[in-house]
């Protein structure tokens, strides 16, 4: 593993720190603006959505919305740029889509799961990619459901355990491979180390593997291209990068794994402006910035003549410890390169700037 040395390394500069009066579970930038959302759970047991605007060296609260149930996750991925509706999943298993201008009544609401929705992702909105806008939710009840905001009450796809099988918690979901109207893929990570790739065009399981540790976060490097790379992070400080271009019939996808720190890696997020750079956030309150380097040849033939992928290598660009508590959520700004927000369990949300990303 090589490292970029000296003063040319990207620096992670902490720009603003904001103490919150509730536990923040997710933070997201509002697209096309210098505003961000924080979602979480107040001590009273109610859900909180706060809208902040970045003013110089401060975060100014624009709006604070309270909801009956604590909110675990949210995404802007499935709305249009004009509407910018926020889709949230809460502790009770409800999926709601809110218009932040009129947040009293949700635009769309469904009791999607029997237990907490751990993770949510959206695709087809924001002018990125093609196809119907869809939202996928993964829950502790072991099911992964895909919703279309135009269809009420029933999901358009439901990945549930076989009858009689004991369920495992689904901890994370991600969309990918949405390069045209028909193709779509959902990747789900579970607490027993399973990663499953569902193809929504053929409505089947395309690939599955087990990485020996509960999977905390999965993300494709881009949702709207032919699937290129998938990063899956897990407990015990490990994460795996899978090369998704070549699928071998038995061995699946090639991968490289790295053990960065002793604690759980809670989140991985790719830089929207450069799909080979991503940041992982850890349970020890640290952030690591990584760069993936492709191998000379991305695929090779094995002994039987079938194609198999070749994984590349990873280099650590920078790491920084910001907090003593886990940093559970992370989001890059799609508008300004290097601007990111992270929320930690010490009830603070931090806006960070990563410098010198142009030189990588």
């Amino acid at each position, binding site marked *: 593993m090589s490292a970029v040395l000296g003063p040319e390394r990207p620096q992670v500069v902490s720009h603003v720190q904001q103490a919150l009066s509730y536990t923040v579970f997710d933070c997201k930038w509002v697209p096309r603006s210098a505003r961000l959302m924080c979602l979480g759970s107040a001590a009273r047991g109610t859900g909180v959505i706060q809208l902040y605007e970045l003013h110089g060296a401060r975060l100014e609260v624009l709006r604070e919305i309270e909801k009956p149930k604590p909110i675990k996750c949210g995404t802007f991925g499935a709305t249009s740029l004009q509407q910018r509706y926020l889709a949230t999943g809460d502790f009770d298993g409800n999926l709601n889509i809110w218009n932040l201008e009129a947040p009293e009544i949700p635009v769309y609401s469904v009791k999607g799961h029997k237990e907490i929705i751990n993770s949510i992702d959206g695709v087809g909105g924001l002018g990125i990619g093609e196809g119907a806008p869809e939202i996928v939710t993964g829950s502790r009840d072991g099911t992964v459901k895909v919703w279309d905001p*135009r269809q009420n009450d*029933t*999901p358009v796809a*439901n990945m*549930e355990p076989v009858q009689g*099988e004991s369920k495992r918690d689904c901890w994370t979901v991600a969309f990918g491979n949405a390069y045209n109207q028909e193709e779509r893929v959902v990747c789900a990570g579970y607490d027993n*180390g399973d990663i499953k790739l569902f193809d929504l065009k053929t409505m089947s399981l395309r690939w599955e593997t*087990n990485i020996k*540790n509960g999977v905390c976060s999965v993300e494709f490097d881009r949702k709207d291209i032919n699937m290129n790379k998938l990063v899956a992070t897990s*407990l015990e400080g490990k994460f795996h990068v899978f090369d998704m271009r070549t699928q071998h019939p038995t061995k699946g996808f090639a991968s490289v794994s790295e053990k960065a720190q002793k604690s759980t890696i809670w989140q991985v997020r790719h830089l929207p402006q450069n799909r080979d750079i991503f940041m992982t956030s850890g349970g020890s309150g640290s952030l690591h910035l990584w760069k993936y380097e492709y191998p000379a040849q991305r695929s090779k033939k094995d002994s039987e003549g079938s194609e198999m992928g070749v994984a590349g290598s990873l280099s650590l660009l920078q790491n920084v410890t910001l907090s003593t508590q886990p940093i559970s959520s992370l989001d890059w700004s799609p508008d300004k390169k290097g601007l990111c927000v992270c929320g930690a369990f010490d009830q603070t949300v931090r806006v960070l700037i990563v410098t010198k990303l142009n030189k990588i």
Partner: protein
Amino acid sequence: MPVWLREHSWRQSLTAVYLSLPLRGARASAANIFCSEQYLKVSIPPFLFEAVLYAPIDDTNSTAKIGNGNIFFTLYKKEPAMWDSLTLTNADKEKLQHLRENAVIKAQEKAKEETEAKKITKQEHKKYALEATMKLEETERKRIEDLKEKERQKVTKELELWKNQQKDGDKYKSIQTKEELHQEIEPLKERKNEKMNKTQIPNEGSSKRRFKSTRGCHGSCSIFSQDLMEEQLPAPRAAATIKVNFTPRVFPTALRESRVAEEEEWLHKQAEARRIINSDLSELEDLKEEEKNPDWLKDKGNKMFAMGDYLGAVNAYNLAVRLNNKLPLLYLNRAACHLKLRNLHKAIEDSSKALELLTPPVPDNENARVKAHVRRGTAFCQLELYTEGLQDYEAALKIDPKNKIIEKDAEKIRQLIQGTVQSS
């Protein structure tokens, strides 16, 4: 008796005295010379030279040069005056003695002072060095801090610029697009009609491109573009279910690599326990729940032993052992029963098994080990294997030397052995 060196020669000036002392072959070093204000001594055993000087000298600046079998002293006088002689000739013995002692004391004091002074200077040097390093580190740290600050400020400025750009950009674009849209309304309407007939995908490409150019505007997009976008979207997917099988896992907690070994062990032990209980299911069916508990059975056995029902006790212990064969006390107690029943070989077996299970030998299981050794020893003796019996008794004694009974029995056995040896 020292050999006095008397062949010295000297000469003087107003301020100094020059003394030359031939050494008669002895080798001198700085340690052999002792000099104070009014006393000079050179002692190279067995040679000795001493001189109580006529007048005090400045002993710190005076020098002695050793070489060529000779010591050459240069003594600087405290008061410039010509001396009548090198030494005080008319001094009596007492005065001389007194002077000598004074000289020694003075020399000692001087030595002490010197060491003190040295210590102080050393400490000061250390302090200075420490301060210097601290300063260096401070400057280094400051330099890094400054670099970071600069970065931060640069980045903050950029951010502000970007934000303002965004705001301006929006205003500008909104004005621009209003004009553009007025121009484009007509061709858009046409395209819309065309689209109805053609397939979706190629048109999508072209209209998508147009939308990308107006992406910047928020609130000033026309209705037309929105309609088109909605029509572009495919219908919601046909609902379907995919059935999922999970990698099996017994525990409800998440999988962690570091815990896998522990979990395996736990499962193994559970399987073991279940197997034992289930293996004799037919026989154990008519037993009550408590009768399947090895501890309860042990207590029952103990009670029966106390009452004298040795066979019953053995049965109880047998069942307990079947359920859990890792408890040493069961074997120990069963050994006692066998002794009473005169099943000596079985007693030996059980005591041995108990001892095996009682490793490692720690103070906690001392008691049990003593008992095991004693019981085995007794069994051996009753089988007339006195030497083995003695070995066990001695082992017991080693663990518990204060036990008189064991000592007495050991003695008895020794005598028995000696008796048989003598008689044979």
